[in-house]
């Protein structure tokens, strides 16, 4: 399973990528939408884990752009906000079960990744 992590908190995504690698998942990370779009031009991912509140472009908009480039990619949203507005918008995009609120336990994330990953 190849996972793309997108969050402006570098320390969060880099540590998460290392922890996922320990569990056999290849995870790449970027901290902004431009880098995410660049990366998917050259590499393919099964799942993208997107922060809802990214600088300059929110996670929902980024999801739509990534989908155009990689139609088979699946998405999980991660947010620190947990507002009803975010929940409704993200649930409409990916299903309410794939909307996680920070801080998230690795076991919960692993379960979601395995659930969404259907080879």
């Amino acid at each position, binding site marked *: 399973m190849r996972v793309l992590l997108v969050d402006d908190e570098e320390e969060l995504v880099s540590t998460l990528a290392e922890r996922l690698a*320990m569990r056999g998942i290849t995870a790449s990370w970027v901290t902004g939408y431009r880098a995410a779009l660049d990366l998917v031009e050259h590499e393919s991912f099964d799942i993208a884990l997107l922060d809802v509140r990214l*600088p*300059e472009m929110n996670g929902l908009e980024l999801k739509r752009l990534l989908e155009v480039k990689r139609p088979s990619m699946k998405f999980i949203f991660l947010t*620190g906000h947990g507002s009803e507005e975010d929940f409704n918008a993200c649930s409409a995009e990916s299903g309410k079960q794939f909307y996680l*609120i920070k801080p998230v336990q690795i076991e919960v994330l692993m379960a979601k990744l395995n659930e969404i990953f259907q080879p």
Partner: protein
Amino acid sequence: MIRFQGTANTLGLLFCGTMTASMSHEIKNALAIVNENAGLLDDLILLSEKGRPLNPERLKTLAGDIRRQVQRADSIVGRLNRFAHSAGQPVTTTDIKEILEFTAALAARMAAMKGVTITVADTTILLQARPFIVENLLWLCLKHLFAMSTGNQTVQLGAESADSHVVIGIQFDEGVAVEEIGKLVTQEGQPLIVALQADVSVDAHRHLIQLTLPKKFEE
């Protein structure tokens, strides 16, 4: 005046809501990083129990990372606490630079999300006012800039003395619709402008909005 006071309070509530939502999000991010670093420590210990040697330098780095995030969260909570107390603060004499710097700190995360950098000019002028209402009016200027921002912009907050008044300047980059921002701030912020006995003017050539406030507040 009573009607304006009521709507000034309503604007204050909206200001509080926006700022507390932003700061709680920042705290969540710091906690999420602490959570991942603590989890990584668990993972490394688990691996050591299976025979992989623990690297003390790595552990030191992780402990340092956790400490930094705790300090970060503590600083945000400090800002939140100061902001919460400022809402009920009466008319007081304050250095305008403190108000400008605090407003810039409150808005920093939202500015970063919109690709805007806020700077504060070095200035010292004493102003007698309710700091919360001045911050609220400044926030309206920044909020409308953020809404229009296409990224990679700067805004400078400064102030100068003009006889019995303080003139706060919000200087935008060339190309920003400063007249539109001034119009929106004057409309939305009218109760705050009245409460502060202030005046809002726009200098489109200098990409500048000026808030003129009396140095001494008359009840």
